[in-house]
């Protein structure tokens, strides 16, 4: 039992760490697995100190083999464990993509519900940290297209803490995208205040003129955009999706019916991205409410560029403001 705790001010990475610690304490079936997650505490130190306190059989340094990590986690889940595996960086999940897509996502359905696979795959994702290639990508749409998986991404420390709790408790596999450039951002975490369900979007700023939809690393950017727009007299609403699959279309619809304009922001390439899905469905749902086409701001259909160019590639304040202006101009 955690001692009576009040709110703490924690970095997002530390919030996940505390959440994992709590899960390890409360459920002996929870395991942490991955490369360097033990002594080192992970390359981002998200699992720092956990092996020291829970031992090598609960916090497991694995061989350097991503398919092996996910594949054995599936086997452990079949035996009744609840593995939380870490993929070191976004670009390295692909050796495990086969296991995730053909096995992890489908086994519950193939067994007609007899088998449950409560596996969490943690992936630090996204750019903005000046990394070398394969360390800055946003592959969430590649996973969201696959039924049987839940895809979530917190944008702040409190969500990181609670969404991890919920992901571990879920009987479905969850791909947990951690916005690595927000790892060091601090926020209030109250380990007592149980939040809404994992798939529920949250209005983080009320507004009347236009809705900005984002998740993970882009929520903070949207807050900056809204602040800048406010100086120009524009009142933007911001919706933090938190979950990409399932996606809370009802929340977007409610907001769009109020503001009548929608801009979706994500780091991943726009082409066939989550913004495309949102635009299509919201057009279908809100056709008569919309005053402007749904606009998207995101990455280009090009390999993630070298770090010196990433600010050009990533959606920034001006690109989003530009889209806001275009939407408002209709």
């Amino acid at each position, binding site marked *: 039992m955690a001692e009576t705790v009040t709110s703490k001010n924690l970095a997002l990475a530390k919030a996940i760490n505390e959440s994992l610690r709590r899960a390890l304490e409360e459920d002996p079936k929870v395991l942490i697995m991955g490369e360097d997650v033990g002594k080192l505490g992970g390359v981002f130190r998200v699992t720092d100190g956990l092996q020291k306190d829970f031992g090598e059989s609960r916090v497991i340094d694995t061989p350097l083999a991503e398919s*092996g990590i996910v594949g054995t986690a599936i*086997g*452990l889940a*079949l035996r009744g*464990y609840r593995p939380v595996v870490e993929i070191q960086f976004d670009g390295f999940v692909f050796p495990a993509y086969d296991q995730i897509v053909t*096995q992890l996502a489908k086994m519950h359905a193939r067994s007609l*519900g007899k*088998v449950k696979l409560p596996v969490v795959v943690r992936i630090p994702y996204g750019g903005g940290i000046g990394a070398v290639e394969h360390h800055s990508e946003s592959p969430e749409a590649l996973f969201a297209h696959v039924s049987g998986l839940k895809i979530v991404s917190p944008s702040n420390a409190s969500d990181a803490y609670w969404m991890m709790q919920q992901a571990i408790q*879920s009987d479905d596999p969850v791909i947990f995208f951690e916005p690595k450039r927000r790892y060091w951002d601090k926020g209030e975490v109250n380990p007592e205040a149980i939040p809404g369900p994992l798939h529920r979007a949250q209005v983080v700023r009320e507004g009347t003129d236009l809705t900005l939809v984002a998740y993970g690393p882009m929520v903070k950017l949207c807050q900056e955009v809204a602040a800048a727009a406010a100086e120009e007299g524009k009142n933007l609403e911001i919706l933090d999706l938190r979950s990409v699959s399932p996606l809370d279309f009802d929340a977007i619809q409610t907001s769009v019916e109020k503001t009548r304009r929608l801009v979706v922001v994500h780091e991943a390439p726009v082409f066939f991205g989550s913004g495309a899905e949102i635009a299509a469905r919201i057009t279908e749902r809100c056709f008569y409410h919309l005053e402007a086409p749904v606009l998207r701001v995101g990455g280009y259909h090009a390999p993630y560029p070298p770090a010196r160019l990433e600010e050009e590639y990533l959606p920034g304040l001006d690109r989003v403001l530009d889209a806001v202006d275009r939407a408002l101009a209709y």
Partner: protein
Amino acid sequence: MTVESTAARKPRRSAGSKAGTTGTERTTRTTARKAAEPELVQLLTPEGKRVKNAKNAEYAKYVAGITPEELRGLYRDMVLTRRFDAEATALQRQGELGLWASLLGQEAAQIGSGRALRDDDYVFPTYREHGVAWCRGVDPTNLLGMFRGVNNGGWDPNGNNFHLYTIVIGSQTLHATGYAMGVAKDGADSAVIAYFGDGASSQGDVAESFTFSAVYNAPVVFFCQNNQWAISEPTEKQTRVPLYQRAQGYGFPGVRVDGNDVLACLAVTRWALDRARDGEGPTLVEAYTYRMGAHTTSDDPTKYRADEEREAWEAKDPILRLRRHLEASNHTDEGFFAELEAESEALGRRVREAVRAMPDPDRFAIFEHVYADGHALVDEERAQFAAYQASFATEAESGFAAGSGDN
């Protein structure tokens, strides 16, 4: 090292000689096969004689006390499995199944290893382990659902500790390893067995499962049925060393057993399972056998393999071999074979009737069990689907689509 084996190591490419390449490849193949045979652990010759030698002594003790009744049981298992398999092949030909992957020729490997297992052991099969399923008590008719296209599994994996068939080559070896890691964590003394083919041995997942199981000393037995072919590709397209030798590089033992010798398969698998139970970690068993039929009913082996090859292997038939042994040992009488024949026919009939009676799944099954916790998108699309279906009912009621036959 002989000239031939040098050729096996490095096919020489004489300048501009295309024809020569084919010649070299043929040499390579025969060489690998010839080299393979003496390494087999064998307890019964193709003529049905018991073999005693230094190589098999360590394993022979695992079947030392085997009774005539047990031997007849193994024979019965193999005969019924073959009969079931033949029925499924026929059902595919009759259009009742979309596809069938026959185990013809592999009965000894599957029954021998399957009968070595304890109830609390756990099996991770590929898509061809019908004999192992039989040993686990999975009703054979349940194996046909996925081939008929009414489901993707058809049995509760935890009901018989027999996981669902896995179509993606090699994936299940990792699941087996993870499961075995869990068994070890639980402090249980059960073991896990993963089946895969010689083709699968090339997959990264199989290599990774060797790594993980070795590193964590997982109680898992890797049971490779080297049936010589991966669809049209011979084993030499997968490896330059005998497969069982791979284990050495990972730090655990590998052994090649005569896969057409049910007794040897039983003994070697028991030995490997014992090691797992005793905390000695993984073992690789390579059952050297032969796929006598096609890869699946969609395959045409005449395009890639010689008839003589099959004929040579027919002489080593696993069922015939045990029959010869039983007869020579006076362990049976005519009544036994006649009864078994009748039982086989009854099984064939039961399977045939069961398949024909298999209902198509409810159309809403599409949306069932996609998630354990539910998912808004699935709910939304199920509702759309229901509305669409209902639209036919409405039209039919109002007389527009009368006779459309859809309901």
